[in-house]
Each structure stands twice: as structure tokens, then as C-alpha cells.
């Protein structure tokens, strides 16, 4: 078969820069977690929790998340299309423009140019940059697929195409705002409508950014790394279309018990439960692919990352629907349970699948094994333990808040003040910070391993 000259430099470029932004987001996360236990670490006006937290979330979602997806999708799309990327120049420009956009977002958020909308805090000029960035990527990815040399599109390409259109629709609608100046705008929606549009966006950003692209990655890299075909093509078709159809109904589960119309909340609740099916369709497809291959969990460090990732995804997609039920939401909404939940998705599912994918791509692109498998194993355990400490401590804190906020005495009086509750969860905040530090150590070890793998003429320090 003819050998295709893939553009790997764009993949490497996005890997390196997504790692930079990944380090920024984890480091910022650790810093703001310490601000919650030591308020004297807030240095106004720029370095307060209120200004840094949006930079943490957006650097995570857009810098590390989308940056690493760009890397993996450029790798996957070229190989599944069996041709070089449609435009090298456009890809190169996209890498620079991506960094310019992330820097613009970080600087403007630090200066307080903030729309308040979660995961969409950037003001309109940065929104415009994000739109341009997405159009560039969409054109290049679509044209590569359009001119492909392999007639049938593999599962990962379906997810890629769905993400292109999904992100575009969500982002454009939620960005609707009237500018007053270069860095101040007002939402075109008001009050309850604004809330409903925002959480239609917010929850489906989780779908179109933090679920669909990493699923494309998972479907490609698990079978590749395990050297075995995906278990069921039919299951992947059912899971794909039902996921796309069902996700968009669920945004209002972030707004249970609010003035959003009751029937919207009920639909969101019902569809959230139904989403368990397509989510677990993928989980089972992953697990059953490993039939007869489970020894690779011991022998192949990549499989550990992918199977841990899809397991976190499975837990995430059970816990999420549970939280979307009115009675449970009444108990844990507004508590620290919720950041415990989202971090299992980001630190467990998304980051773990991307760590595995980056190791695999680096081995292939440099034509050698990873610098140190021992280090990769240590990386795995550090992020696994860091993630677990983080989420479990916040779940306990959230349950405690839920109980104490709602505790009522025999005479109908509230048992605890708000401060009683806050003081009582401080130990869990410390454990969470510790979990963040352990995770950060794992990430830094990963960088070092990747750097050594890529170093020209690296001596391979290989041990099993």
C-alpha cells in the first residue's frame, strides 16, 4: 500500500501547547483551592478567586481540552481519510491563532472583562476569535474528510463531524449579546430565558466538547493500542445517534427547582436518565473490545489509561443522571458535590483518555517506545489517586453541606448557620487541595516523559 505523508508537525504543535495550557489550568486549580481555605491568598484586584476561577475552567476546557482534541483529531482524521491534511498552511495558522485566543481569553478575564456565563465568560471580541478558530478547524477537518481515500468513515469521524456542527450551534446562540464597548456587553436574553439558554449551552458544551471529541479519540485509540477491532459496529451506531438526539434536552437539569417552566425541567430530568443507555453503550463497547485481552491491563500501560478513562466516563454518566433527578438535586445542588462530579469527568475521563492518546501518538510519530514505561505507570497512579482524593473529598463535603443546610429542629427552626456548615467542610477542602497537588505531580511527570520521548536522538531507557 502506498505510504501517505501525514502532517505530524501540526499534531505535535497542538500536543505541546495543550500541555502548556493543561499545566496552567491544573496549577490555577490548585491555587484557587488554597484560596478557599486561606482567604488571605486573594490579592485584589486581579488575583482573587472570582477572577481566577473562570481562567481555570476556560484554560481547562478550551486550552487543554480543545487543544489536545485538535492534536488527536488532526492525527485521526488524516489517518482515517488516508491522506494528508487538506491545508498545511491553514493548520499552521490555526495553531498560532489558537494560542493567541487562549492568551486573549486569559488576559481579558484577569482584567475583569467577564460576561458571568459559566464556561463562556469571555467577552465578545474573544468570542469572535473562538468562532474564527472553530471555522478554520472545521473547514480543514471537513475538507480532509471530503477528499478522503477511504470510502467508509470510521466511528471516530462521525463523532468529529458531529462536534463541528454541535459546538458551532451552541456557541453562537449563547454568545448573543449587545456590545456597549470593546469589553462590555449585555446578554440579549433576560432572566429566566437567559438562564435556560445558558444551561442549554453549558450542559451541551459538556456533550459537544467534553464527550463527543474524546469519544472519537477513544474509539480510535483503544482498538489501536489493544490491537483488536472494536466489539460492535451496530452498538456504536445506536450509541452515536441516540447520544446526539438525547443530549440537547437535558440542559435544564442544572435549573431544577428554579422558575424555568416545570415541563422543561421534567423533560430534562427524563432525558438525563435516558442518556445512561447511549453512554453505557460506549462503555460496554469498550469493555467488550477487551474480551480475551484483559491481560493487557497488566502488560500494556496504554490500556490502563483507556480503560480507567472509560470507567470514569461510565461512573460520570451514572452519577450525572442521578443528580438530574429533582429529589436528589434538591439535596446536592449548590454544594461541593457538583465540582466533585465535574472533576471526575475532566480529570478522570477526558484527561486520562488524552494522556493515553498522546503517549500512543508520540510513540508512532517518533517511531520509538515511550522514554520510560515505569514513569508512565507512576503518572497513571498519581493522576488516579489525585483524582480520587479530589472527587471523594468533595462528595463527602457536599453530602455534609446538604444535610446541614437542611437540618431542621422539632420546632421548625434551622439547626445550623451558614458559617457552621462552611467551617465543618474545611478539612475536606484541604484534602481536595492535596488531591490537586498529587494530580499536578502526575501531570509534570507526564510532560517530562513526553519531552524525553521526543528529544532528538534520545537514548531509550526502556524497562518493563
Amino acid at each position, binding site marked *: 500500500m502506498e505510504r501517505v505523508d501525514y502532517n505530524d508537525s501540526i499534531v505535535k504543535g497542538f500536543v505541546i501547547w495543550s500541555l502548556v495550557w493543561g499545566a496552567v489550568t491544573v496549577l490555577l486549580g490548585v491555587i484557587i483551592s488554597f*484560596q478557599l*481555605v486561606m*482567604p488571605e491568598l*486573594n490579592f*485584589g484586584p486581579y488575583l482573587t*478567586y*472570582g*477572577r481566577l476561577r473562570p481562567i481555570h475552567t476556560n484554560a481547562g476546557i478550551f486550552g487543554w481540552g480543545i487543544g489536545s482534541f485538535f492534536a488527536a483529531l488532526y492525527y485521526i482524521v488524516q489517518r482515517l481519510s488516508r491522506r494528508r491534511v487538506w491545508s498545511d498552511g491553514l493548520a499552521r495558522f490555526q495553531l498560532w491563532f489558537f494560542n493567541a485566543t487562549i492568551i486573549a481569553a486569559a488576559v481579558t478575564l484577569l482584567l475583569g*472583562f467577564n*460576561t458571568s456565563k*459559566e464556561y463562556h465568560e469571555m467577552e465578545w471580541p474573544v468570542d469572535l476569535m473562538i468562532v474564527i478558530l472553530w471555522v478554520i478547524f472545521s473547514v480543514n477537518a*471537513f475538507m480532509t474528510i471530503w477528499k478522503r481515500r477511504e470510502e*467508509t*468513515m470510521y466511528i471516530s*469521524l*462521525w463523532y468529529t*463531524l458531529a462536534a*463541528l*456542527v*454541535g459546538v458551532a*450551534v451552541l456557541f453562537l446562540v449563547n454568545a448573543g449579546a449587545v456590545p*456597549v464597548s470593546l469589553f*462590555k456587553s*449585555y*446578554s*440579549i436574553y*433576560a*432572566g*429566566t*430565558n*437567559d*438562564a*435556560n439558554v*445558558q444551561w*442549554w449551552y453549558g450542559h451541551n458544551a459538556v456533550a459537544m466538547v467534553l464527550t463527543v471529541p474524546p469519544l472519537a479519540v477513544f474509539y480510535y485509540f483503544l482498538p489501536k493500542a489493544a490491537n483488536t477491532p472494536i466489539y460492535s459496529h451496530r452498538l456504536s451506531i445506536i450509541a452515536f445517534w441516540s447520544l*446526539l*438526539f438525547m*443530549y*440537547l*434536552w437535558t440542559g*435544564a437539569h*442544572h*435549573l431544577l*427547582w*428554579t*422558575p424555568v*417552566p416545570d415541563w*422543561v425541567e421534567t423533560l430534562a430530568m427524563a*432525558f438525563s436518565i435516558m442518556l445512561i443507555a447511549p453512554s453505557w453503550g460506549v462503555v460496554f463497547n469498550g469493555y467488550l473490545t477487551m474480551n480475551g485481552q484483559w491481560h493487557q491491563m497488566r502488560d500494556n500501560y496504554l490500556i490502563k489509561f483507556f480503560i480507567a478513562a472509560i470507567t470514569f466516563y461510565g461512573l460520570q454518566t451514572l452519577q450525572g443522571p442521578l443528580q438530574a433527578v429533582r429529589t436528589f438535586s434538591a439535596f446536592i445542588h*449548590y*454544594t461541593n458535590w457538583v*465540582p466533585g462530579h465535574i472533576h471526575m469527568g475532566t480529570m478522570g475521563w477526558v484527561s486520562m483518555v488524552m494522556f493515553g492518546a498522546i503517549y500512543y501518538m508520540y510513540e508512532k510519530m517518533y517511531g520509538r517506545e515511550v522514554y520510560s514505561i515505569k514513569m508512565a505507570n507512576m503518572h497513571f497512579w498519581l493522576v488516579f489517586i489525585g483524582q480520587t482524593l479530589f472527587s471523594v473529598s468533595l462528595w463527602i463535603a457536599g453530602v455534609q453541606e446538604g444535610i446541614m*443546610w*437542611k437540618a*431542621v429542629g422539632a420546632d421548625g*427552626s*434551622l439547626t445550623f*448557620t451558614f*458559617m*457552621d456548615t462552611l467551617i465543618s467542610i474545611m478539612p475536606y477542602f484541604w484534602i481536595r487541595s492535596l488531591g490537586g497537588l498529587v494530580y499536578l505531580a502526575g501531570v509534570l511527570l507526564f510532560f517530562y516523559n513526553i519531552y524525553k520521548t521526543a528529544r532528538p536522538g534520545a537514548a531509550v531507557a526502556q524497562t518493563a
Partner: protein
Amino acid sequence: MWEKRPVLLLLLATAAILVGTIVTMVLPFFWVNTEADAIAEVTPYTALENEGRDIYVREGCNNCHSQLIRPLAPDVKRYGPYSRSGEFAYDRPFLWGSRRGGPDLARIGNKYSDEWHYRHMVDPRSMVPETNMPEYSWLNDAKVDAAFAVRKMDVLGFPYTQGDITALEGKTEMDAMVAYLQKLGTDLPRTGKAADKAKGLRKAEENPLGGDPAAIAEGKDVYAGNCAGCHGADRGGNIGPELAPGDFEDDELFDTIADGLPDDGMPGFSRLGRDRIWKLVAFLQAE
């Protein structure tokens, strides 16, 4: 077939995501912010309040504070009557928040005095000893920009007079922030006569627990957790008055604690319940 045709796949994917979008995101516009949920008493923000709201957004206060009281008994007991759609008709953007790292602020307006807010923003721990709220003292140093404020009011379509704008001259960002906080949740008229509610809770003229040493000890803890910030750790007074034993009758103290003095910045503490309020009264009347 769609597995071989990327354009078809794109079209089908778009259709799949548009169904849920139209039903749950587009259709609610026909219910919300219409006559059906409008509340006549709700007014737009004044120029100064709107400046405060923009500062609230700029500083990311919504990362820790919600502004949405759910129709759940513990929420209503702690924060006041549950939020209604029409109350938010002028909120662009909405600021309901998603986490209560700090308390809900939907009805913080008129709960405390202006003075309490000024001190709390500059040094939160002076009013609430163990809070993890950051300091915002620099808001005292920045002045609001009156010309820019006018442009914002025009874009939002909120009414204002020349007098409102002239009054902005010399106001600090702190003034704006406090004005905004004091507006929150105050549009709805207070329901019922507060004094009657307190009497219903009180049920007696004299303190059934008066002079009981165990009650006084418990009352002391209640005082430390709820009252010391304003009335001083030693009851000597701070922004609230000194509270010496015998200054007030038992029933007078009970009613003031339960209902607060809304015009004087004293919040009501009916959420403590009858038993603990009597214990607190016992402590306040003890030497």
C-alpha cells in the same frame, strides 16, 4: 449510507441536535418574560445599582454566591420567599449562580445596614470571623464612570433622569456595589405584619427559660454565632447597639430578634426557632 457521505452525516447530526434544542430552549420563550409571569412591582436597576451589578459580574461574585431561592422549606426558611420568574425580567445576564460557596443573595437587600456591607466588603472577617470571603477594599479607591454608565443604561433601555447621572459623580465602586446588594429582592412587598408573626412564634410574655444556667450557656453560643459580629463579642456594641441586661423586656427582645428591624439594618432570626431565641434572651438578660 450516511457512513459514506459526510454532508449527509452533517445534516442528520444537525437535525438530531435541533429537535431537543427547539423544544427545550426555543419554546420556553413563549412562556417566560411574558404577561404570564410579569410582576408589576419589579423595577429596573438605577444607574448606580446597575454599576454595582456590573462590578458584581466583573469580580465573579456569581462563582460563590447564588441568587435563586428554591421552593424548598430549608431554602425559604434560610433566605426568604422563593424566587419567581418575573423578578428577573431586567437581569441581563441572569446571575442565579450554580454553587453556594457563600450564602444566597437573592434577598440580601435591606437585610443588613449599608454600614455592615461597607465594613464586610473591606474586611469580611471583622463582621463574620471565620468566613473565607476575599477582601474587596480596593473598590473604595475606584470611581464609577458616569458617561459610560449612561451608555449602558441606554443599551439596556432602563429609565434614568439627569439627576440620577449627576448623582453618580464622586461615587465609588463600593457605593455602587452596596447600592446593588441593597436592591436585591426588595421589589416584592413584604407580606403580613411581622409583629404578628413574631407573637405567634413567641407564645409567652416572659421568658420560660429565664435565669436557667444551661439555657444561658447555650444562649451564649447562639450569640457568638449570630450576633457578635454587629453587637460585639462582649455585647458592648459595634455597628449594632450595646446590649446590657435589663435594657429591654423579654418579649420585646424576642420580637426584635425574630423579626429584625428592617429599617435599621437588623436582620430577623426567626430561623433560630422559639427555643433558641428564648435561650438567647436568657443570655442577654443575664449579668
